[in-house]
C-alpha cells in the first residue's frame, strides 16, 4: 500500500481546516479589506462584533497602508490584519474572545497567548491607539506561503487600570514601543490566510531600523 494512501493526514487536515474556516463563529472584523485606515469597531455600531466582542471606544487599531489592487495580495494583508484584530480582541476580553485561534498558529499563537496572560487579570486593560504602518508583502511563495512586514507604533497604546483608566505603563514591553513585525503566513484551502510565525525587532535594532 502506498504511503500516500496510508497517510491520513491530508484528509484530516482538509476536514479540520474546513471546519475551522467555515465555523459559524468565524472571526469577521469589519473593514479589514478597505483601502482606508481600518479601525477597531466602535460601540454601538451594529454588525461590528467580533465573535460577540466589541472594541471599546477608547481603543483604536489603525492600519494605515492602502490596500493593494491585486486581490491575491490583498488577501495576504487581510490575513495579517485579522490576526492583529484577533490579538487585541483576545487581550481586551481577557482571553474570552478566542477568534485568534483561527488566525494564528506556531509561535504567533504563543505571542497572543503571552499577551492574553499579561492581561489575564481583569484589573488591567489597554487603551489608546496602536498603528500598523508601511505594511508590505516581502514575498509570496508558491501561492501558499507569504512573508509580511509592518512597522508598529505602540507609543500611544497603554496599559491602564480598568477601573480608573489611569495609565499603568506601555501596552507592550518597553522595547516594543516602535518595532518591525515580520510574519509568515500560510494559505488555507478556502483561500484565506493565517499567521503561522512571527518575529519582532525593536526599531532601535539593526533589523528594525526601517521602522525608525
Amino acid at each position, binding site marked *: 500500500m502506498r504511503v500516500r494512501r496510508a497517510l491520513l493526514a491530508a484528509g484530516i487536515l482538509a476536514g*479540520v481546516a474546513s*471546519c475551522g474556516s467555515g465555523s459559524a463563529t468565524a472571526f469577521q472584523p469589519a473593514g479589514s479589506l478597505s483601502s482606508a485606515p481600518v479601525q477597531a469597531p466602535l460601540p454601538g455600531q451594529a454588525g461590528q462584533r467580533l465573535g460577540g466582542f466589541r472594541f471599546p471606544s477608547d481603543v483604536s487599531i489603525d492600519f494605515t497602508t492602502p490596500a493593494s489592487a491585486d486581490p491575491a495580495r490583498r488577501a495576504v494583508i487581510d490575513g495579517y490584519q485579522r490576526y492583529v484584530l484577533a490579538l487585541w480582541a483576545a487581550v481586551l476580553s481577557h482571553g474570552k474572545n478566542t477568534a485568534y485561534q483561527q488566525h494564528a498558529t506556531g509561535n504567533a499563537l504563543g505571542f497572543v497567548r503571552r499577551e492574553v496572560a499579561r492581561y489575564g487579570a481583569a484589573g488591567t486593560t489597554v487603551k489608546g491607539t496602536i498603528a500598523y504602518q508601511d505594511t508590505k508583502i516581502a514575498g509570496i*511563495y*508558491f501561492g501558499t506561503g507569504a512573508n509580511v512586514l509592518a512597522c508598529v507604533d505602540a507609543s500611544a497604546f497603554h496599559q491602564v487600570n480598568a477601573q480608573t483608566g489611569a495609565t499603568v505603563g506601555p501596552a507592550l514591553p518597553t522595547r516594543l514601543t516602535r518595532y518591525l513585525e515580520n510574519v509568515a503566513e500560510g494559505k488555507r484551502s478556502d483561500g484565506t490566510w493565517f499567521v503561522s510565525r512571527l518575529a519582532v525587532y525593536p526599531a532601535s535594532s539593526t533589523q528594525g531600523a*526601517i521602522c525608525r
Partner: protein
Amino acid sequence: MRTRLLTSITVVAACAAAAGLGQSAPALAQRALPAGGGPAFSHFAYSQVQVTGDVNPGALGSPTAYTPAPCWVEPRFTGTNSYHNGDPQPSATGDADSYWWWFVGQEPALAGVLGRIQGLKQAVNKVFKARQGGGGWWWVPSWINAGMGGYSCAWGLVHMLNWSAQYLEYQFPQQGGPDTPGHPINGRILADLARAELALPAIKVFTSPAAGKPSDVNLPVWVWVDYAGPQQPTDTASVPLPDGSTLSATVTTTPPRVSVAVSTGSARVYNNCGATGSKYTGEAAATPPCGVTFLAPSTGGPDTITVTARWTVRWSDSTGDGGTFASPPWPAPVQAGTTTVTVREIQAIN
C-alpha cells in the same frame, strides 16, 4: 475500515478544534555549530548544508544583504531514521516522524488539537514505520533561518509540492519550476549560499603623505591598501547526498583590482594599482603607479580619496557546472575605503 478511521479522526479533530483545546508544537530545530575544524557556519533550518571557508556568518541574516532562494529541498533523514520506538517524541530534531509532527503543528486548525485526535498517532507511525530501515532518504524543505522569508517559502513549498507524506518525500522530489526557488538542492543553490556568506576583506587605505598630514599642489600622493583578511577569499557550501557522496559548490575570487578616485576634478589620478596599490618608494618626485596629484589647493575642506578593491567572483560545483554572479541582484563584489587630504598651495619664498 480506513475510511471509518479517517471520518472518526476528522470529527474528533473538528470537535476538539471547536472546543479550543491547547497543545503547543515542538520548537523549531536549530542546527548546532559543528565542533572544531575551522570556520564553519550554518544559518539554515532543517538543513545539512555547511558553508566553510572565508565566511561572514551574519551575511544571510542581514536585512540589507541580498538573500538568494530562501528555501529548497534536500535529503535530511535516512531510512534508518524514519521512526523510533516511542515516537512521536516531542523533538523536532530526531527523525522523519518527529519532523512530520513538528510541521503539522503549524497547521492552524490542528495546532491545538493534534494530541486529541484519536488514532492519528498510530496512522502516522504506520507510515514512517513502513520506511524504517529502508535504503532511501527523506527529503524535506530547508530554509534560511533569518527573518520569516525562509519559513514562508518552506511553507509554500510543501503545500505546493503535494508530497506523499505531506511535509516529507521519500523519493527524489519533483522540481519546483525554473522561476521559483525551493527546488531540490543543486550546485547553483549551494553556490548562492556560499556567495551570500562570502566575506570580502575590508581594506585599510594608506597614503604618503600620511593621513592627517597636508600635501601640496603638484606633489604626488602615493596610495596603497592593506586587507583585513585573505586577498582572494573563497568558501564552499556542501551537502551530503543519499548515495554517500557530497554535492558542493565553491566560490572563488580573482586577485582584487584596486582603483583610486578623488572628490575634485583638479587632480591627476594614477590607476595602475594592481591588487595593493603602490607604497611610497622614497622618490618624492616620481610618479606613483597608484595615487593622485592634486592640481589645485583644497577649498571648503579637505579632498577625499576613495579607494576601491574589486573582485570577480566565480563558482563551480562538484558536477562541473559553474558561472558568475550577476550584479544586480547580487551586490557588486567590492570593498571601499576613504581618506582625506588637505592640499596646500606651495608658497614662494622670497
